[in-house]
């Protein structure tokens, strides 16, 4: 037995407790001797919590006191001190801002350490040179949509403020988490703050109290997964205890399905629209839908409710019954041939749905991120309308940031979300950008290479459905092509068709490419200058867990709280906050006061707290680290679409007619009848999809690009605490990214579990480790995105990416004539066994790791 004198003291074990919040949820961090010794989920003291609750059949649900985290919640110690941290400014060795830039060597050559002074001098002289040579619009900026959690320290705060002040060209995201909803559903029920996805207030109570059936169509609410998800686990279990039936429709038997579904209906990707049409067919032919609601709340369902001047035969009902141009009734038997779901199952689904109050989980998801991806969301809207959307029990929900418990944003004013502007919300002035030119991230290579681009709008900052029709051009009159590109965060949102994106990043016209990031991953490996930034453990902030703000309205099912990000540790290496880096540059342009208005980090945070009505002084809040709101008093729930359901005239939709336009007047006016975006939604087979084609014969498997369970998009691919659970160890010891395939597809190719394979199509090749599973629909292969790149030939030739990034294979083209992109789930691939020994021989340098994302030295 050990010497008693060596027993641990409680204070040594516990350390000092700090608080912060991550993309996985709020955290408590134990610190001792300046180091983190423990990262835990936030645990609220029951004595200080006045919780809301939901009671049904005498059974009670209360949100958990310990916040359930997403898988990367507690990896902070491995990641903050990771070997892959950027610890000091680095310059690519063969990038000489005064000489040869060697843009072709991005991703190949290594990096040398430089001082911050040298780095700032380079940044200053490069920006001044660019402005003098081309004008400010030649500077462009972009950011990872998935950085560390924050509000003051977030791109909507420090980043947009700086670059708008500098008149840079903004690179736009498209709303690529819910692309088809944004491009399609907006045409029916208008824009909404979430671009096509209406808020779902008070749905937690509606589902709990009123629904008997829950249909999950192409969504995994727990592991989708953004900022929340695991916090639903106990809620799903409670719903099951209450006897609710859960049905999952998906090509993958997803996690919520495995955990809670009574029935999994496997479906071919991209054929959801066919099944939706057949459900509508059953309801129409059996008369089991809400005709009165459609008559008063919608236009275009039947010939009796069409806008004036539209020729007969253009209603939805006409299309479904086979009385329109295609003369094809959309029967369950017709759908079975397309989607692979037996007609009896489709018919039964339609009947169950019609007979019982049903919660329809359908927003976002892979079914909307594909060719003609506007159509399924539009069809889903019609199904919602046919069920009288808004009446008790009739709701539509999404997999994340959608389901909502009681949320009183009027009397409980919190710090709200990351899109609420951070420092901009408390500054006196904002310098509007004088450069009107934008550029979409979906077409960067094409735009830069050709030097011009004409496209229709459709981006993350849209404010109306009509903006999809706006004509945009690059460069704008009087403005410059971009020659300077700075990205905040190392892993941008994983653009499709990686090889094309690499060509953009290596383009000689991009004379300067900077990345500021905490970790040396993804795009860092392509940058000319890499600047170290802090993680949320190294800076202070005020946030509200899982609150996005503005463009995604409140949707929280936990105990609502506000978190003070206490500084847990000193900065790692020489890292700085983005704000401090940008403030220094602003200073060199004489704009520091314009940028910061004399505020410090603490000054901003004091002002940000003052915009809330949290009943704590700044000092108390900072010291304690969090505030938990009590259950809202005298709370009046106003369920999603309830007002519209009761009185559509007094509560119109934000659509041209104020009704839900099953027949879209916007589409009709813009396109007339166009096969790619007809005025009433259709099932349109994908060109690169399940239905037979020449390409399908060559590449017979549909790639499924679902969210990675154990990565936050492109982050944490190097966290061995997580990779140990999912990567497939090859015979060479390399941790390969998994590819999931059905046993029949494996057998047809002579593959078995654990084999290392090449997944390929005309766009690229990647290596992956086979996981044979019945969780996949036959004919579908899940190869997800966000794995760090390790191209065996540096990404110049035909060699595969050993890292297994599924985006090498994805389709980067248009969704339809209506929207410029977002169709990356429409990708066909083939898989065959890899000859690792031959690859090692053919590409010795690459095999040894020369081009790896995480190889800073480039040797």
């Amino acid at each position: 037995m050990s010497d008693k004198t060596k027993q641990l003291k409680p204070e040594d074990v516990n350390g000092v407790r700090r608080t912060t919040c991550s993309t996985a949820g709020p955290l408590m961090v134990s610190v001792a001797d300046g180091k983190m010794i423990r990262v835990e989920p936030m645990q609220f003291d029951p004595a200080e919590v006045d919780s809301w609750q939901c009671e049904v059949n005498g059974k009670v649900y209360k949100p958990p006191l310990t916040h359930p985290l997403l898988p990367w919640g507690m990896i902070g110690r491995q990641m903050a001190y990771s070997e892959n941290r950027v610890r000091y400014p680095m310059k690519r060795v063969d990038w000489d801002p005064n000489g040869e830039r060697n843009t072709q060597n991005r991703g190949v050559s290594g990096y040398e350490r430089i001082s911050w002074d040298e780095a700032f001098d380079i940044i200053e002289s490069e920006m001044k040179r660019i402005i003098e040579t081309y004008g400010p619009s030649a500077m462009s900026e972009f950011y990872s949509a998935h950085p560390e959690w924050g509000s003051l320290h977030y791109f909507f705060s420090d980043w947009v403020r700086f670059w708008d002040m500098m008149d840079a060209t903004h690179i736009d995201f498209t709303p690529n988490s819910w692309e088809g909803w944004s491009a399609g559903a907006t045409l029916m029920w208008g824009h909404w703050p979430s671009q096509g996805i209406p808020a779902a207030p008070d749905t937690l109570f509606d589902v709990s109290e009123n629904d008997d059936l829950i249909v999950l169509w192409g969504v995994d609410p727990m592991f989708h997964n953004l900022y929340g998800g695991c916090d639903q686990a106990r809620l799903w279990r409670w719903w099951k205890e209450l006897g609710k039936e859960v049905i999952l429709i998906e090509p993958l038997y997803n996690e919520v399905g495995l955990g809670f579904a009574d029935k999994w209906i496997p479906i071919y990707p991209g054929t959801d629209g066919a099944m939706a049409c057949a459900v509508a067919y059953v309801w129409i032919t059996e008369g089991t839908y809400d005709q009165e609601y459609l008559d008063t709340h919608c236009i275009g369902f039947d010939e009796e409710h069409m806008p004036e001047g539209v020729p007969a035969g253009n209603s939805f009902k006409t299309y479904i019954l086979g009385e329109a141009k295609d003369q094809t009734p959309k029967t369950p038997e017709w759908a079975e041939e397309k989607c692979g779901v037996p007609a009896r199952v489709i018919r039964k689904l339609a009947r169950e749905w019609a007979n019982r109050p049903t919660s329809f989980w359908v927003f976002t998801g892979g079914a909307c991120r594909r060719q003609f991806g506007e159509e399924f969301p539009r069809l889903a809207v019609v199904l919602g309308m046919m069920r009288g959307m808004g009446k008790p029990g009739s709701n539509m929900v999404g997999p994340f940031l959608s389901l909502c418990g009681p949320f009183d944003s009027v009397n409980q004013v919190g710090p709200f979300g990351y899109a609420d502007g951070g420092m901009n919300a408390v500054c006196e002035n904002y310098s509007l950008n004088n450069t009107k030119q934008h550029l979409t991230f979906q077409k960067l290579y094409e735009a830069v290479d050709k030097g011009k681009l004409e496209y229709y709008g459709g981006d993350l900052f849209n404010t109306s459905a009509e903006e999809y029709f706006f004509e945009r051009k690059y460069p704008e009159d009087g403005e410059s092509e971009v020659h300077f590109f700075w990205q905040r965060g190392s892993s941008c949102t994983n653009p499709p068709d990686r090889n094309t994106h690499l060509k953009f990043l290596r383009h000689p016209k991009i004379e300067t490419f900077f990345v500021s990031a905490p970790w040396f991953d993804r795009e860092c490996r392509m940058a000319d200058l890499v600047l170290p930034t802090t993680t949320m453990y190294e800076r202070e902030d005020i946030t509200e867990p899982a609150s996005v703000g503005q463009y995604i309205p409140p949707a929280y099912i936990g105990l609502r709280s506000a978190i003070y990000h206490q500084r847990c540790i000193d900065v790692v290496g020489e890292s700085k906050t983005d704000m401090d880096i940008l403030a220094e540059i602003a200073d060199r342009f004489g704009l520091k006061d314009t940028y910061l208005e004399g505020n410090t980090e603490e000054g901003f945070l004091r002002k940000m707290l003052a915009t809330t009505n949290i009943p704590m002084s700044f000092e108390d809040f900072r010291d304690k680290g969090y505030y938990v709101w009590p259950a809202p008093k005298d709370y009046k729930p106003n369920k999603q679409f309830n007002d519209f359901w009761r009185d559509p005239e007094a509560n119109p939709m934000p659509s041209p007619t104020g009704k839900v336009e099953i027949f879209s007047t916007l589409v009709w006016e813009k396109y007339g009848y166009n096969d790619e975006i007809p005025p009433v939604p259709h099932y349109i087979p994908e060109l690169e999809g399940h239905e037979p084609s020449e390409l399908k014969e060559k590449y017979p498997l549909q790639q499924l690009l679902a969210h990675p369970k154990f990565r936050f998009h492109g982050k944490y691919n190097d966290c061995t605490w997580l990779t140990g659970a999912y990567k497939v160890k090859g015979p060479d010891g390399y941790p390969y990214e998994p590819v999931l395939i059905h046993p029949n597809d494996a057998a047809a190719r002579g593959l078995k579990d654990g084999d290392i394979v090449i997944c390929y199509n005309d766009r690229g090749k990647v290596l992956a480790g086979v996981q044979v599973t019945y969780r996949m629909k036959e004919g579908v292969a899940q190869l997800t995105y966000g794995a760090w790149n390790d191209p065996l030939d540096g990404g110049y030739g035909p060699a595969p990416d050993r890292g297994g990034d599924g985006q090498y294979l994805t389709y980067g083209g248009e969704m339809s004539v209506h929207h410029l992109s977002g169709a990356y789930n429409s990708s066909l691939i083939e898989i065959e066994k890899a000859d690792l020994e031959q690859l090692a021989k053919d590409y010795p340098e690459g095999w040894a790791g020369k081009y790896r994302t995480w190889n800073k030295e480039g040797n």
Partner: protein
Amino acid sequence: MKTILVDPSRCLQCSNCWVACKDEHTDNDWSPIAAPQTDDQWWIKIYETEVASGAHMKLNRVPIMCQQCENAYCMEACDKGAIYRRDDGIIIIDPEICSGADCDKCVSACPYERVFFNEERKCAQKCTFCAHLLDAGREAPRCVTACPNDALVFVDEDELTEENMYAPLERLYPEYKTNPKVAYVKLPKPFVAGELATDDEQDCIEGAQVLVTNQVTGAVFEGYSGSFGDFHVDVDKPGFYTVTFVADGFKRKSIKDVDLREPFSLDVVKLWTLVK
């Protein structure tokens, strides 16, 4: 005395239990309770097994950590006296006594494969129920606190009574005769699954009774088909079974010699309409 109650049916393989364990024990020296864990050690691990086939497949996920056995083979195997049981029943491998060990007898003695050998420190290591945290006044081991779905719960052993339990109490591999302290409910069982359709495959058959009879013991297990005709009936032990379907308006059907030594899917089973 407290123990962990594990319900594998609730496990989502979300990673929080083992990441919490890694966080607590990697690069942290909690001697004399535990030396730092190395990257290749998984003191708690979720064993995943895919069973049955098609859309009726099931993914079994069983979290396994040191079972804190009453009959602890690791203790018996250690001839240095490095492994001891605390008053609260938690078994500890003393990192100092074990350090520089030239044997790994306890590693191979553990039938649950939850004792690990640290090659750097030359010592054996395993889950301690986070005894250092319990001693410091905390209520539960890290893995339990982190679990979002109560697949792991820290409970008083005295409370594991029939009236308190929502399912029969089980132990992991009782055949090892280790008499573990860690408790389980709803461990994966053999089952038969499938879906019932009418003979013309035009409709699903809901509400049919499904009787699954062990052909040796005669034990009968019962279930009903759901909305889509799906059925899933657990049995208590591997063996051969007769599966009988009874539904109003349909001919009774029995499928014999169904091999449930492993879970099995009958896929689509058709029932014929009774001729009036």
